[in-house]
């Protein structure tokens, strides 16, 4: 199944969270790498990467979801992606011939589109990608949008690339229209959709973020995770100390058998 999902600046009505299909279960691995290729983009590679990172942090911030998105580098072209010839998925590409994919007039109101979704036999997403409008002279070319609008667009399309459909709630990020939104914020509806598709289970690993401890820290994210790990250890020490002082548990004091009454 391949469908094209649009985000436009038109406006209209409302409902509840949806998915792209009734049995789509998201990507098989809840750690998803989004590959970015800035070739043909009307904005610089560093600008695009920065916006993608902001978008990723929006979806990574869902407490009750196991979803972890990372950014990677893609070498795929639009033609290769559309032909189904890339394994760097999901991918974000800039399309200088955007009107060919979305149709004539739409190129002036549609800043991005998600081409999806192929699923495997288990219902997991196996193919998906986002094309950004980079067509010269197009009214919705992303270079004409503010940084916030591009981030909103990317965040919405990333929701599709992860398996979410539209929301009927006007304030939701997954509502079809940007409307008056200025900031990529997830509403309860967006959260519910992603939680249902990528639920978190801390009984199978990790407590309050302790599962994400990486000791090989080379970037800021890993540093934060490392710091989280240190906090885990400190918390454990405090719990043990409290237990010892209040209830004499974890105590090494010898057990004294009470004497029998005479």
């Amino acid at each position: 199944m391949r469908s094209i999902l649009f985000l436009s600046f038109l406006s209209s009505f409302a409902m509840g969270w949806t998915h792209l299909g009734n049995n789509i279960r998201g990507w098989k691995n809840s750690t998803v790498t989004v590959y970015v290729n800035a070739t043909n983009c009307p904005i610089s590679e560093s600008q695009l990467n920065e916006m993608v990172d902001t978008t990723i942090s929006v979806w990574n911030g869902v407490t009750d979801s196991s979803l972890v998105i990372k950014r990677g580098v893609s070498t795929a072209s639009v033609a290769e992606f559309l032909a189904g010839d890339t394994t760097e998925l999901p991918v974000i590409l800039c399309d200088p011939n955007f009107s060919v994919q979305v149709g004539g007039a739409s190129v002036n109101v549609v800043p991005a589109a998600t081409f999806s979704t192929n699923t495997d036999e288990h219902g997991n997403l196996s193919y998906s990608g986002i094309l950004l409008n980079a067509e010269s002279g197009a009214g919705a070319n992303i270079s004409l949008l503010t940084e916030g609008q591009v981030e909103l667009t990317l965040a919405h399309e990333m929701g599709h690339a992860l398996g979410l459909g539209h929301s009927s709630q006007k304030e939701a990020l997954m509502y079809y229209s940007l409307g008056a939104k200025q900031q990529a914020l997830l509403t309860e509806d967006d959260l519910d959709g992603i939680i249902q598709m990528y639920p978190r289970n801390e009984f199978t690993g990790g407590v309050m973020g302790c599962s994400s401890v990486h000791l090989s820290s080379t970037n800021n994210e890993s540093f934060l995770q490392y710091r989280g790990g240190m906090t885990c250890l400190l918390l454990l020490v405090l719990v043990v100390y409290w237990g010892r002082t209040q209830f004499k548990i974890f105590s090494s004091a010898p057990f004294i058998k009470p004497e029998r009454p005479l």
Partner: protein
Amino acid sequence: MGASGRSLHLDLGGYQNHLEQKRNAPSGFEDKVSSRTGYLRLRGNLPLGTNWIWEPSVGTLVPWKSGVDGNSKKFTTHIDFTFSYPLISWLRFRLGPGVKWVFAFSDGGPIELNNGISTSTFYSAGYSSHSLTFSAQSGLSVVLGSKLSVNLEVYGSGLLNNLRRNFDAAITLGWRL
């Protein structure tokens, strides 16, 4: 509600999701980013022999959240193992671990929604899912007599992860059953 004996309490009040997002949300978004709902809880009161009281509880957000289309529903429950300690005779400090259980389910029905150009068919998921996250609870309990109390709690989850940290709050009126 002192430390004199075992008892059971029914708490009823309000629950606020995502306090931290409410703080960051632009004007007009607060009500949608951070939703409010009712909260119903059953709480035990088990003195531990010192001034500490163990207060295990099970609470649920009411009513269940439902999509406008009726196809998707969400059921959120807190199972907590809180300890309380008297600060003064009528005020207790509460602290403890817990588990937040989110159960989302839907019937897989098709839904026609606008896609900006025309409409597309989307779907509610045809399966259910469970999310289980550990949380820490902290709060105050104002003792209003032998039967009544007012409880204010903050639930924190994902506390050790900067990106996922989340705070909810509840205020309830408690009756000793």
